């Protein structure tokens, strides 16, 4: 069912990650992205893996949910990993060599294995920490509020930050609604014998028409109703709107951000002090 998609879904819960200021979580996500991609030394990788595992443990989110977040990227990781594995040329003797029609050689070097593993690890860490910081523990509304707050200096440059934030909130708000709607329309057409999963590509594309037309019709209807409802409540653009929940940075938030900065710094230090022989 469409409703079962986990990537991009808030999970109600309570742990220190839930209580962090969402702006701090955005900052922490950016810092961790930089850390994952600047890590060169194996020690730095080890440190980041340990810390991400610790984060998973402290988040209070079950390991199975985390695995489900990784599942959609596994196929991409496999393809990319295999490409990296075979395209990396090492200095020493290859572990494995096979000439295909004497056109090109398939060779596996120890460096290739290391690069493929680290490459996949990097992506997995990235997905896990982003999901933990942003999607699982932050509601879409507080996420967009936080984004608007982080980007608010741009209003000086006449960027309509608040309008964008409102558009994003609405878009995010309607993803589950539309998914549910699609599900319902699909069921209704299936009940009339529609078949979406067999036949040629063209047949399958044509089979989508009975879903897309009602979906568009109802999206326009919903958009119109929402606009009317917003006008009824005197919405006239986002600037100057006050919030029910005002973000306040606490000591712990600043401490956490500082900690993330310190980890990033130690990654750079490990890169220079304890470099490993593999070029990544």
């Amino acid at each position, binding site marked *: 069912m469409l*409703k*079962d998609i*986990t990537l991009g879904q808030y*999970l*109600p*819960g309570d742990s220190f990650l839930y209580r962090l200021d969402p702006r701090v979580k955005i900052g922490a996500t950016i810092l961790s992205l930089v850390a994952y991609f600047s890590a060169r030394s194996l020690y730095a990788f080890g440190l980041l893996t340990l810390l991400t595992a610790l984060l998973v443990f402290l988040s209070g989110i079950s390991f*199975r*949910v985390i695995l489900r977040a990784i599942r959609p990227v596994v196929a991409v990781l496999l393809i990319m990993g295999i490409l990296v594995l075979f395209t990396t040329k090492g200095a020493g003797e290859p572990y494995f060599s096979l000439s295909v029609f004497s056109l090109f050689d398939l060779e596996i070097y120890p460096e290739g294995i290391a690069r493929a593993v680290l490459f996949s690890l990097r992506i997995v860490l990235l997905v896990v920490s982003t999901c933990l910081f942003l999607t699982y523990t932050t509601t879409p509304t507080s996420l967009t509020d936080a984004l608007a707050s982080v980007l608010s200096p741009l209003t000086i440059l006449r960027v309509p930050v608040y309008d964008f934030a409102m558009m994003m909130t609405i878009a995010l708000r309607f993803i589950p609604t539309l998914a549910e*709607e699609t599900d*319902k*329309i699909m*069921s*209704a*057409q*299936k*009940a*009339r*014998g*529609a*078949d979406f999963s067999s036949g040629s590509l063209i047949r399958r594309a044509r089979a989508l*028409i*009975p879903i897309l*037309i*009602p979906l568009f*019709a*109802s999206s326009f209807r919903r958009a119109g109703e929402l606009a009317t409802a917003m006008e009824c409540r005197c919405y006239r653009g986002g600037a100057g709107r006050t919030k029910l929940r005002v973000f306040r940075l606490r000591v712990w938030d600043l401490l956490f951000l500082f900690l993330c900065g310190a980890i990033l710094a130690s990654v750079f230090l490990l890169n220079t002090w304890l470099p490993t022989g593999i070029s990544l």
Partner: protein
Amino acid sequence: MNETVNEILRLSDVSYAYGAGTPQRTDALDHVSVGFQKGKITGVIGHTGSGKSTLVQLLNGLLRPDSGRVFFEGRDIWEKPKEITALRFHVGLVMQYPEYQLFDETVEKDIGFGLRNMKLPPEEIGARVREAAAFAGLPEELLKKSPFDLSGGEKRRAAVAGVIAMRPEVLVLDEPAAGLDPRGRRQILSGLHRYGRESGTTVILVSHSMEDMALYCDHIVVMDHARVLLNGTTAEVFSRTSELLAAGLDIPEISRLSAELLAAGVPLSGTLYTVEGVERSLLSLLGKGEASC
């Protein structure tokens, strides 16, 4: 016994949960066993979230039970999962707010969508569309219009016609009268009642209005908290007033009155859930025979 012989559909020990394996897991059906009589009109009633809509989607194989089995005419419908589309022509389902599924250029083409999926010849499609439109109470001149130009009630009837046209042995309708005004409600429900009687089709109606159930159904299944609370003929179910009230269902004013009369020692008998039935019973008690007031 005789009852199971006449059954066309049966759920046997069926469970279904949404979001299995996540913290938001909710049980929609919890070991439910229930049968539906051939040629009868059965009402499924229950509170919001009692599992009614899940139940009807299991009947035509839109959902697959987590455990338990669904039988249509004695055969497990999931015996050959690839043939599930064929079952949907035998068990027709009209979903909630079906007017949002209309998509084709004209009402005629939209009603014929299921028939084209059945791969029927065009002449037969035309004849069946007209027949179904008549059953659903849709005037002929509307057939050439775009479904998006119809009124709410007309759209609803066009969607119902789209399923009737397939001539299913079982017609399942999830809240067919939801959101319609009292007149539209009566039109669509009495139309379905007449259709069921005239064509001999088994009709399963989901609703949360006890008044509608009392008027149109032979049998009633009462759902509460993912389980079947009561299951029996309309008279049987309406005699269990206290259980219905405990399940948070609104019983018709008239059965509330007759329940209080019975409790006060008035020996009423016969149909006690319609105004006419109670009137007849009271009059016969007073010895006035068939006179009406």
